[in-house]
């Protein structure tokens, strides 16, 4: 993580921080979601804890986690040598492309709750998928004219690979201390909660409340505040789904409700930036 931060800081990225609202992917951090929109250039890198209730495995599966960590990089506009830059970042964490077999295998990405999709690859190193690499085409339901590229590293997997262990819980984080010592109980509890104990009625009410609050905040023009509640909705939906509380037929409707909120926030953000004359255009020398 430190090596990745150093590498991407040298490439002109603002080293951001995780966003303190629960979410399913680093893309949902406003540093990516909002800043992908519009013509302004942008470069950012940050770690993002990502909660995926459906992937929870009670801390027993060597590769699946309720909460995993992504290292997220967004470069906009996409530099022409982006793959070479990326290979440089792998070298920085000890994966020299001259020794390893690095492949870019087609894998297009879609996040229906964000109204977002893109074209790209999963990156394999010696047969292991360690990165999702995406050219965004749409975000918040809005077509993107200036091409952002997102690079998402799966941190647990990469660390396990670099340390040569097969189970992420066996990663040594400090000599004598394993990752499992820290998170196994948390993984167990969130799995038990998401699959067995979460109160469906409470979650449904919360979803509705958050959706309502997102709309109210948007009506006041407060898109950051509104978007926080959209993120709440998205997480609550994920828990509800893991809990088996959403019938397949209702799924589309829930997704549409979240997407509408995301679209509203995206439109407000763009209006605001436009009114300010897209102030970041041409301002940061390292981004040109």
């Amino acid at each position, binding site marked *: 993580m430190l090596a990745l931060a150093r590498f991407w800081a040298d490439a002109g990225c603002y080293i951001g921080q995780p966003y303190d609202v629960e979410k399913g992917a680093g893309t949902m951090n406003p540093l990516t979601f909002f800043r992908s929109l519009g013509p302004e250039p942008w470069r950012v890198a940050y770690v993002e804890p990502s909660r995926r209730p459906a992937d929870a495995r009670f801390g027993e*599966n*060597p*590769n699946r986690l309720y909460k995993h960590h992504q290292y997220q990089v967004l470069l906009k506009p*996409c530099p*022409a040598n982006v*793959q*070479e830059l990326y*290979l440089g970042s792998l070298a920085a964490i000890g994966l020299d*492309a*001259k*020794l*390893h*077999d*690095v*492949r*870019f*295998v*087609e894998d*297009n990405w879609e996040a229906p709750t964000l109204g977002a999709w*893109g*074209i790209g*690859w999963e990156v394999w*190193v*010696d*047969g*292991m998928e360690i990165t999702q690499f995406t*050219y965004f*085409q749409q975000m918040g339901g809005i*077509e*993107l*004219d200036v*091409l952002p590229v997102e690079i998402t590293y799966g941190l647990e997997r990469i660390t396990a*690979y670099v340390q*040569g262990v*097969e189970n992420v819980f066996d990663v040594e984080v400090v000599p004598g201390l394993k990752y499992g010592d820290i998170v196994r109980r948390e993984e167990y509890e969130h799995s038990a909660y998401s699959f067995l104990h979460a109160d469906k009625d409470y979650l449904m009410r919360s979803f509705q409340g958050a959706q309502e609050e997102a709309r109210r905040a948007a009506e006041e023009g407060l898109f950051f505040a509104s978007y926080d509640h959209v993120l709440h909705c998205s997480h609550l939906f994920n828990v509800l789904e893991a809990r088996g509380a959403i*019938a*397949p*037929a209702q799924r589309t409707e829930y997704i549409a409700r979240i997407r509408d909120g995301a679209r509203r926030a995206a439109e407000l953000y763009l209006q605001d930036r436009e009114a300010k004359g897209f102030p970041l255009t041409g301002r940061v020398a390292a981004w040109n």
Partner: protein
Amino acid sequence: MELIVELGFPELPSGTIAPAADELVQGLRAAAEAAGLLGEDWRAAVYSTPRRLCAVLEGLRGRQPDRIQEVRGPSLKAALDKDGGFTQAALGFARGQGVSPEQLERRETPQGAYLYLRREVEGRSARELMAEAVAAVTRSLHFPRTMRWAKDAPRLPRPLGWLLALLDGEVLPIEVGPIAAGRVTYAHRVLAPGPHAVQGAQDYLEVLRRGFVEPDRALRRSQVAGMVQAAAAAEGLVAEMPQDLIEEVTDLCEWPQAFVGSFAAEYLDVPDAVLVATMVHHQRFFPLRTRDGRLAARFCAVRNGGDEAVVRRGNETVLAARLADALFFYREDRKQAFAELRPALSGIAYAPRLGSLYDRSERLAKLAGALARAAGRDDLAPVLERAGALALCDRATALVRELPELEGTMGGAYARLGGEGEAVAQAIAARVRPRGGDDELPEDDAGRLMALADRLDQLVGFLAIGKGPTGSQDPFGLRRAAIGAIRLWETVPELGLTPALAAAAGGYRDLLGAAAAEAPDAVRPFLAARLLARAQETGHDPRIVQAVLQSGIEYPSEVMRRIEALEQAAQGETWTLLVQAARRAKNLAKEGGTEGAEGAERDLLQEVAALEEEGRLLLARRDYLGYLRRAAGLFEPLDRFFAAVMVMAEEDDVRARRQALLYRAHRALSQVAEIAALSAAE
């Protein structure tokens, strides 16, 4: 002259590369031909890798031949006023062509006298024309999925990285979005990145091969196959080499190098299908077998660079992790007897409104048994009822949740391990086949009836709740299911559509009520549409196919034979007359009694009765051509009948009797096909 064009990309999706490269070379060739630039000894070559599409055209002329262009202008009447001066029409034409009106000629034509422009047009240079062609062809390439990547640039599957475009060593003036054509290429991303300057087609290949890129796809493909075979043979093993995998691996490397890796022998406890699916689908490895066909604890993989020992170790680690998962799931699954998984199916929804998988398993059990009996295979019913009940149990297993492509296959394997009989296990595995259009059908009748039951249950259920395909959207795979059903049906000719659909609809009675009862009426035209598409794909005349389909598809397996018979019979003048008579009969026909016929009526009645009688035998023997030829004999009595009697007689009873007679005649004529539909008038 020689043209070389290379479009460079970051890694393209593997399936799209070769077709796009072909399109590039064909497009350029066609453009050169249209411009008159193809010399007599022209040659074309095409190259492709994951990062490039390349076309070479040799033997181009440097310039188009000069030619005479003639353009007709307005007629003299319109062009000259009464004083002989030019009118606005003439002046406008001249201005449009960029000449003065005095330069126009006057010429007599069969349509009258006209003004003509005649000028020599200098041929344009290959440089200009091919530059335009490269830009145009790049814009017109087809890819299944494209992206926006720069302002004012054509959509492409990935951002264009570079464009090499040389005509006899000179860079062509082309811009595609922000990319200007140049004289450089890039070789292997890691082993010899570039840029590397290129003079022409000859040194292009040398530059790339020196740079660890094999641009000739056919050669690279045979390298992959050969290296995998050799690597396996060196271990005394044989590689399992699915065609699709060879193609995909060829399009995932620029410089293939095969190596053999191994995994712990304990994983061989996992059923072969799981090992193969994990290796082939998830890792793009070639499984290795001993000479007697058993899977070895080895695999062969192809790398695109890197240090062999490092790459092997990495790939072994990844495979070990996947197999550890698989082994864990497999052991978990086996903690319960297979049949005991069935209650868990009630917690898994099949589809909204169509109940749970448990409900579906009950339907499959009943339906498969009913199909067996309807097809005259009562002996298979007990096996199919058991297999149907258990057929979905593998959906409740951890392995199938992880590797959904093993649905069915694992069901069979677990059933066998769970002590079900071999016949039941095989029928369970057969249910999911054929998986696609050209996948093989199950080997035996029990398996084919099981698979047919699966598809009929699916079709009836989804069509009953109105979830049929719309346009290109077929979210529930109903077209594929219908095609599968039609192919399966060809192996059970005794099975009629009516009892089969009634049995399938009966399974939904409790869930869907009236909608279930009406579902067969929706399934019939749906199957007919697939039959039509299938017959047309194999080159049959759509009118013939339609005529056959119109007379019913009660025995779907017979449709193709009826089409072929009709194609043979439907020739000659007699046939045309018969078709006209059939149409006339059809237009006047009305169901009723035929008692009291006399004269020409009675003659026709006797002939119709004889055809009905003999026809039954011919149809039972499935001699459709014989039937059609026999039916053609009805033309003469019909003709005499039409000549002798007035069908729409004044008296109600006479008219009704004659119409009823025509009804029977038409019915007898259209047992194999609605031949009236072949009339040119329709």
